[in-house]
């Protein structure tokens, strides 16, 4: 994983509550065996017409002025539904580095953090402010500091967001969590010696 300490960029609002993983990346794109090309399929059914190819001009991700946005601001409870890690892969592929909502589904949050996509939970007022800001001025940019856990609005106001210490450490240092677990091999062996296995699938 790459190090992630700062994000600066414009925002794109999708003020829809409960955006589920089937909207972020529909199941028919899960037949891949790698992570390539998922960005193009992000929000596919909202983004393209009946043929799945012609951009829907009304959908915000297709508007010229919102191209290149780094931060997605969404309605409440983002990422509910399936455990597919294809959801953060698709968002990263579409150029996003952070998603702002009032709340995130647990599995989505876990998956996002493991891929360097920052889930930023803010209060409803900040969320509404970001919606209006982005609608009024698509060039309005925010700054995000992972170390201080702050999101700075264009007017200079700072909003702090929660981030667990371990995920923060991993983001800042580009450490992936598998390395940490692999280093615990002795402890795992000790655990296994004390606890008999419950089933043997190979039997």
């Amino acid at each position, binding site marked *: 994983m790459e190090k992630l300490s700062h994000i600066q960029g414009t925002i794109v609002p999708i003020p829809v*509550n409960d955006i589920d993983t089937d909207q972020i990346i529909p199941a028919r794109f*899960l037949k891949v065996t790698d992570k390539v090309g998922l960005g193009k399929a992000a929000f596919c059914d909202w983004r393209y017409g009946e043929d799945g190819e012609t951009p829907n001009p009304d959908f915000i991700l297709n508007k010229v002025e919102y191209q290149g946005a780094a931060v997605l601001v969404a309605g409440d409870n983002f990422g509910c539904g*399936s455990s597919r890690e294809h959801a953060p892969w698709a968002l990263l592929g579409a150029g996003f580095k952070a998603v702002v909502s009032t709340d995130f589904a647990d*599995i989505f949050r876990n998956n996002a953090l493991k891929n360097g996509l920052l889930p930023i939970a803010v209060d409803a007022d900040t969320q509404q402010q970001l919606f209006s800001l982005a609608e009024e001025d698509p060039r309005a940019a925010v700054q995000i500091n992972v170390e201080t856990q702050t999101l700075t609005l264009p007017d200079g106001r700072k909003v702090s967001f929660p981030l667990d210490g371990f995920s923060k450490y991993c983001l800042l240092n580009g450490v992936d969590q598998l390395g940490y677990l692999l280093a*615990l091999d002795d402890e*795992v062996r000790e655990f296994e010696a004390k606890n008999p296995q419950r089933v043997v699938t190979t039997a």
Partner: protein
Amino acid sequence: MAENGKARTLFEKVWQPHIVREQSDDTPAVLYIDLHLVHEVTSPQAFSMLRERGLKVRRPDLTIGTMDHSTPTTPRNDLGVIPVADAMASKQLDTFAKNCEDFGIPMYALGDEHQGIVHVIGPEKGLTQPGMTIVCGDSHTSTHGAFGALAFGIGTSELGHVLATQTLLQNKPKTMAVNVAGRLGAGVTAKDIILAVIAKIGIGGGTGRVFEYRGEAIRSLSMEGRMTVCNMSIEGGARAGMVAPDDTTYEYIAGREHAPSGAEWDAAVARWRDLPSDEGAVFDKEITIHADELTPMITYGTNPGMGMPITAAVPAPEDESDYNRKIALDKALTYMDLAPGQRLLGQAIDVVFIGSCTNSRITDLRQAADFIKGRKVAEGLRMMVVPGSQQVKAQAESEGLDAIFREAGAEWREAGCSMCIAMNGDQLQPGQYAVSTSNRNFEGRQGKGGRTFLASPLTAAASAVAGVVTDPRAMMTGLSQGEG
């Protein structure tokens, strides 16, 4: 038993013994995983990562694979093979087979007599047992919690962690008791309980929590009914749902392929009997619903929280006080092409789908077949019945259920996820309405532009016969009550 005098919940009694390293201010807990289920869709990138790093699967003997999500459910050919027409699906299945072979993981391939939906085969083979930690790269892993296991879905990176180390980094979740008091009335089933719970708490209501379903109505459910309830915990935002094991649980497990036997069985049951939450154990939150007040439930919107009694009217956005929710409801009704205040009873439908890890087990199929027997699927309606596993399929065929469905005009398919996720051929056409026994009614979930009403197998069967959304109680004569 309460240890050190402190009353503990079922969740705590499973969580604590699996801690390899305690949670600290700086790091989540490291949790040992007793059983890891894998399937073709969420695993390939994890296996690639192992290869890139030159790692092995640490415990193939605690891992098992099956093909289910992207498999077709069309009939076998003359050679007894289920052909895979979709090239990408075919490649994904081949990749999975090779990964399992290379890393020594036992696996049930498409068409194998034990193949099926991952959450159906775990319990079926006796692999799912009380007190275990179970994970799978699939959010409906919560199903296995019906046995008093701590079971939850993980992403592909985490899948790699478990393959390589058999452990997982986890922050300790909070708990929530979901009490279901009283008894279910005739025609009301486990599916209606969980749809009512989610309608009450909303789809984010359980975020960060593990549910424990309790109360008389839960105790009187069969294991299959309990699985239906736990299955949809994730639809209420909870990663896991649990039911304390009891004699119903032990009876279900006894004699299954991977169940302990002899003295080991006695020792296991003795251990399992200690698992239920101690009297006085405190949950972080509690809710109660009354089973005797429940009716068959149905969803009207585009998430599983948008559910209501089947006799109710679709809510109106203008009655919604919260702005974001008003917008969401409006958007959902537009997608569903339903009018505020409209009743769903009598709403014309195109497809009925009976299947998925929520409702594709033998009790579900028996219930639907009982209802359908001697009746016909409405003219022009497509009814698909997709057993959850090859074992369920074989059992159903030995009981003649397939013949009942076929005679009524329904399709009897091979086992798999099928139209629950619409990954390989089985899907709604744009604009079609379906009554579906699966778990998600998200936009496009069952096919782009398709519109899903989630309901129980009984409601699905009644609606298939009538050709419109139908309250099964209106067509019932002496059906066994509160089953499933």
